[in-house]
């Protein structure tokens, strides 16, 4: 089957969306603070209400040409446009983060002194990545693609990996200094950690490999003990934590949804 190339995103629609969004944002900024808060709360409530109702309302057969067995409710056809709308809002929040970063680093750069070099690096990185990123998308020639690869794969990806790998050094240092068996609980924790770590690696598994799997003591294989620790005691504890987190998350979500949350979220 021949593969159809897409002409590209509809620039006109993107620009129209951008202008409309800017106008909406401008109007929102002109609205007095007390009304603005209400608008934000109403938008949050309606957005959350849509997602909840679409999920919880009873469903019925709603066949489509692609899926004759599809089921849903009257809100279901809007799930895809709603998802696109949320993506657009998400894009704006990223923009908000960029503006915030520019403000913080801009002020630091104007002041000069310690840390201003980091701000220069921030601005240079951001501008280069943005320009090359757009260029390689708009004109995907080898030069732009290579430049993008140098920045993204050679720069960002490598820096990310380096930063994360540094953690290993801190873990070794911290484990050596802090992991002291000063109590029964600490001793239990240490013994468990060593069993799990040894059971996790091939060299550790060699320690008990001499025990025949057919013998009565086969359950003393270190990987089997590790497996038991992870599937029985660990599962019980993580399940309890997950329940606690779930209830806590639900409470926070309800507070945000119903506009009960205070602080920067609504009072800005």
């Amino acid at each position, binding site marked *: 089957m021949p593969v159809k190339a897409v002409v590209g995103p509809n620039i006109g629609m993107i620009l129209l969306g951008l202008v409309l969004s800017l106008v909406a944002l401008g109007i929102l900024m002109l609205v007095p603070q007390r009304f603005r808060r209400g608008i934000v709360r109403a938008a949050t409530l309606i957005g959350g209400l849509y997602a909840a109702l679409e999920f919880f309302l009873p469903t019925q057969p709603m066949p489509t040409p692609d899926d004759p067995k599809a089921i849903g409710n009257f809100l279901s056809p809007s799930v895809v446009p709603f998802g696109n709308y949320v993506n657009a809002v998400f894009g704006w929040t990223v923009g908000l983060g960029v503006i915030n970063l520019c403000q913080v680093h801009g002020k630091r750069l104007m002041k000069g002194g310690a840390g201003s070099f980091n701000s220069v690096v921030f601005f240079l990185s951001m501008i280069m990545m943005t320009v090359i990123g757009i260029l390689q998308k708009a004109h995907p020639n080898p030069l732009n693609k290579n430049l993008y690869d140098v920045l993204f794969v050679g720069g960002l*990806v490598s820096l990310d990996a380096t930063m994360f790998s540094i953690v290993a050094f801190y873990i070794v240092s911290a484990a050596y200094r802090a992991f002291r*068996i000063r109590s029964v609980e600490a001793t239990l924790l240490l013994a468990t950690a060593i069993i799990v770590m040894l059971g996790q690696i091939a060299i550790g598994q060699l320690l008990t490999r001499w025990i025949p799997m057919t013998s009565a003591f086969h359950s003393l294989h270190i990987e089997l003990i590790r497996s038991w620790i992870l599937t029985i005691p660990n599962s019980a504890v993580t399940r309890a934590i997950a329940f606690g987190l779930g209830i806590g998350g639900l409470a926070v979500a309800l507070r945000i949804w119903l506009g009960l949350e205070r602080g920067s979220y609504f009072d800005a």
Partner: protein
Amino acid sequence: MNILRLLQQVDRRVLYVMLLLAVTLPFFVKFRVPVAVSPPTQALYDAIDSLPENSFVLFGPNYSAGTRGENGAQSEALLRHLMIMWHKKKVRFGMLAFDPQGKTLAQTIALGLQEEYNKQGYNIKEGESWVNFGYRVDQQNFVRALVKDVPGTLLVDVHDRSVATLPVMQGVHTAKDVAMILDVNPTAAYTIYIQFMQGPFKIPMGLAPTAVMAPEAFNYLDSGQIVGMLQGLQGAVEYEQLLNTFGRATRASNSLGVAHLLLISFIIMGNIAMLLERSKQRKAGGAE
């Protein structure tokens, strides 16, 4: 200085150098220590191996370079199996990333494996055997839309080709047409797939978390919401053993083992020295 005190206060730079050597030196030695395959790894292997003919798998490379050591090796092992399954049963897969680096990292792995297997006559083609949908934002709402209309939500792949017209997407319209979800994820965001795709549509799901995140996922394994799991790099090593291949996980496994042993040695050494010193002090106190 007292030797017991010295053992408890080894300079951190010494620890760093030893760790550096423990991680790098084993890469120069090519040997494989056989490992015991854990039940979650075996279960995932069996689930992929028993996929029906011509089915479609949604593969999620949701990681960045920070966890590439583990998640990259897991991705490679799983993609190897999927490409073997293309050869055996024409199983196709699509990669969808919710991390901006994931799409690039997975694309590199997939292209490398495609080249490797095509030398063996597997005839794997991007767009026909597999597709990279690229990076998308807001996983929760995206997945909610995706389950209802896969090509309509994805629209284009990483090369800006219309997803709906790609041969690899033939017969894939909604979540019901997805035979399996495979999520390589170092965070707890895999629960979004469980909540909005695996659960409602009863799609088998496999997970490849980092070793540090694996303990949390055992609950989902226990409940059957996840059919199998690769636990960190070791899971990938086990998987490569099942595939009878010597990939990046096996190459890195010796480093992992030596680094683990070094860490355990340091902890034991520090504790023995502390206990001996305490006992010495107690005796000295008793003598006074």
